[in-house]
């Protein structure tokens, strides 16, 4: 009973603290609550776009491209291959743009502003293809449009995720913000998951009707843009750098340093296998349309499925706090494996399909929190080792995964085709044909979930080590500020002090209070010998 009341009190305490720290962050934290809200609500805009983008993926499971535009699985796989190639080629440019973002307002926020509208326009255009085109024309037009859209949209999406890594140097706070924002922004797919089947009922062919997509695409991309602007205007980026930090990032110099960051490697290697671990969840829309065939039940089940992500994202920061990010990453992948195994034996069981999909969604949701948080830790480690911030350039390591994906991208479509899913998706109505397909996908999902977990066994950057790193970075930045005459300046890129006040305001106030005095902040700081001439060998302790 005591534990329950303690837990209830801590929940109430957290809620109260949320409003108390609306304008100023709590001690030890960096982000006020209002900014968390802005980031979270803005995330709904990003998710509305993501939902629309999920309706036009280059995969056989895409109703619009597969069932309506009649594009074959191998055509889609070829376009996906080309798109991946273009993405690889454009990645260095994107990385350079991120690390050299003009305007001085950060590396993530500006791109949310600049890329949201083009993303919306390009996504909407994909809903207005003519199903009567011959296959070649369709493939060319969709291919070109999708490739451009994907570059712009992925850039935009990535910057929202990156903002969470830059919004605070406190790793637990980052995880908390990612979790809170994930819970809020996941309302967007929950809303659309419930609304779309009901909107589809207004059209003759339901979710197989072209007009359905031509209706939802413009509406929800516009909503996406409007909500995204909330994130742009309501947030700040905070990295620990000296006042005069204006690093111009050179490509090869950056790459030679990033390749020595083992934590970046671990995170990238796990992404090589992620295409397979969710093989079963990819058929959820097919389950609704070809098996369930009930819009009302689909709306309810979509809501239920949405709770999996919400629960996973809510639990993630608590799990991270008690077990650490590494263990959480391993566990969440292994549970996705365990959830897929029963479908190998019972591929036609509808209840089992939903339960397995629910658990896989849960595991993936946990990693929505843990993975960016681990990525941010890896970036801090980079700064600790080499003094560089490589939010953009670190993405180049992902090019290896993208090259690998050129090959692995054919595996799932090939599995569909060998099970009879070619140019007629109506075979999915037939349980005799569905069962072997779902069984194979379950095998793939199980194996690849284990492969996703494997790299994390090598992750040894725990939370204690990370805290020591951040303190070290603060000391270095403060030392450099002193040496460069910015002794009273904040070491946060946002210009705030650690109590949330603005350093320039503090400076102005100090000067007005001490304008006739010989006192200065300089004397107080320079008497601290420990900040000067620190022993380099202590850096190796982490």
């Amino acid at each position: 009973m005591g534990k329950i009341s303690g837990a209830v009190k801590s929940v109430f305490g957290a809620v109260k603290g949320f409003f108390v720290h609306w304008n100023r962050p709590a001690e030890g934290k960096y982000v006020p609550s209002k900014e968390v809200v802005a980031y979270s609500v803005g995330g709904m805009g990003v998710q509305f776009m993501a939902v629309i983008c999920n309706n036009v993926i280059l995969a056989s499971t895409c109703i619009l491209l597969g069932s309506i535009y009649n594009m074959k699985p191998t055509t889609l796989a070829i376009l996906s291959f080309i798109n991946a190639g273009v993405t690889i080629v454009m990645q260095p440019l994107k990385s350079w743009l991120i690390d050299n973002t003009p305007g001085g307002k950060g590396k993530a926020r500006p791109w949310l502003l600049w890329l949201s509208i083009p993303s919306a326009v390009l996504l909407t255009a994909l809903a207005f293809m003519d199903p009567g085109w011959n296959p070649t024309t369709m493939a060319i037009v969709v291919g070109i449009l999708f490739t451009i859209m994907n570059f712009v949209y992925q850039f935009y999406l990535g910057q929202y995720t990156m903002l969470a890594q830059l919004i605070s140097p406190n790793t637990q706070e980052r995880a908390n913000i990612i979790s809170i924002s994930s819970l809020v922004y996941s309302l967007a797919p929950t809303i659309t998951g419930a609304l779309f089947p009901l909107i589809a009922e207004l059209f003759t062919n339901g979710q197989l009707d072209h007009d359905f997509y031509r209706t939802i695409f413009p509406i929800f991309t516009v909503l996406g843009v409007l909500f995204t602007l909330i994130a742009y205007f309501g947030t700040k980026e905070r990295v620990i750098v000296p006042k005069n930090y204006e690093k111009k990032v050179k490509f090869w110099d950056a790459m030679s340093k990033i390749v020595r960051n083992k934590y970046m490697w671990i995170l990238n290697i796990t992404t090589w296998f992620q295409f397979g671990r969710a093989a079963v969840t990819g058929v959820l829309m097919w389950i609704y349309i070809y098996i369930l065939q009930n819009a009302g039940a689909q709306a309810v089940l979509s809501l239920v499925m949405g709770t999996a992500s919400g629960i996973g994202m809510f639990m993630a920061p608590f799990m991270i706090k008690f077990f650490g990010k590494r263990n959480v990453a391993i566990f969440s992948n292994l549970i996705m494996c365990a959830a897929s195994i029963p479908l190998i034996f019972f591929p036609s069981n509808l209840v089992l399909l939903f339960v397995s999909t629910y658990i896989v969604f849960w595991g993936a949701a946990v990693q929505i929190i843990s993975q960016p948080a681990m990525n941010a830790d890896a970036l801090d480690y980079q700064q600790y080792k080499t003094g560089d911030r490589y939010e953009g350039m670190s993405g180049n390591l992902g090019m290896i995964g993208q090259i690998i994906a050129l090959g692995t991208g054919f595996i799932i479509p090939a599995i569909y085709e060998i099970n009879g899913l070619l140019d007629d998706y109506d075979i999915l109505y037939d349980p005799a044909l569905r069962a072997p397909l779902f069984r194979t996908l379950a095998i793939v999902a199980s194996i690849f979930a284990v492969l996703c977990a494997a790299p994390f066994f090598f992750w040894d950057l725990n939370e204690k080590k990370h805290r020591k790193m951040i303190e070290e970075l603060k000391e270095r930045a403060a030392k450099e500020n002193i040496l460069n005459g910015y002794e009273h300046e904040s070491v946060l890129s946002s210009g705030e002090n650690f109590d949330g006040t603005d350093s320039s305001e503090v400076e102005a106030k100090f000067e007005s209070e001490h304008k006739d005095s010989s006192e200065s902040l300089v004397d107080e700081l320079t008497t601290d010998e420990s900040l000067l001439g620190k022993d380099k060998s202590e850096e190796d302790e982490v």
Partner: protein
Amino acid sequence: MRKKVIVVLLIAILAISSILSLAGCTSKVEEQAAWEAYEKAMANSAEHLQNNGSYFIKYRYNGQNSKGEKAVVTQKLNVVYGNSNIKDWNDFVVVDKGVEKAARYTTDYLNTYFGYSLKSGVKAKNAKREDYALGYFNMKGEFSNSENVEDFFNLEAGTSYNGNEINADTEIKKYTLAYALGTLDGINRESTDLLSAEKRGNVLTLKLKVKAEGLFYSNYNQDSNCLVVRITLNRISKISSADDSLPIYFINYAGPKLTLASYDAKKS
């Protein structure tokens, strides 16, 4: 540390190899085995038909849309047999006959629903045979009684039925499973040369050159203009020509769930 790396790499290689083998490669099938597979598939499909199995067929050809423009026209026929609520009533049928993707810029979806319609106010699980009426709903949703099921499948184009016209630009029977399988009558190892047989997973694709005359597909008598028959899990699933220029049958042995509206439901 090195052992960890080696173990992980070995597992990864093993797993990826397994997946690649599951993804499957195309393999050629010997002629004898190919004909045996074809004969077995025909027998399975015929058995499904004789047992009143449900089916969902699409018949795709180059035609005209409702505006008179050239368009790829897809006629679909979804037939559901059986009624689990009434014992031994195997000839119960509900049919959805429609046209999809016939227009260039809009989707003309013309439906005719035929079959046994339940009286309003009666729940299916409590219904008796006499609560059902056989007939059809036209595009306007009006119900007309019919004599028997075969009358519907034998309807000619533009047929006037009790004053309510069924809109079909060709005979409905051409879209039935019986007709689709019937087009392969006479296709066997004596009348036809097997040009190739390739198997990929559960899908076997046969390319056939028809030597005999007088058969439905006798025109497909050249290497460059051959008949293509796809067999999926031991059942005929697609009949087409090598360049897909002629009408294509997409045959499925299950389709969407069908329930007719009540024949005496009042319209608002």
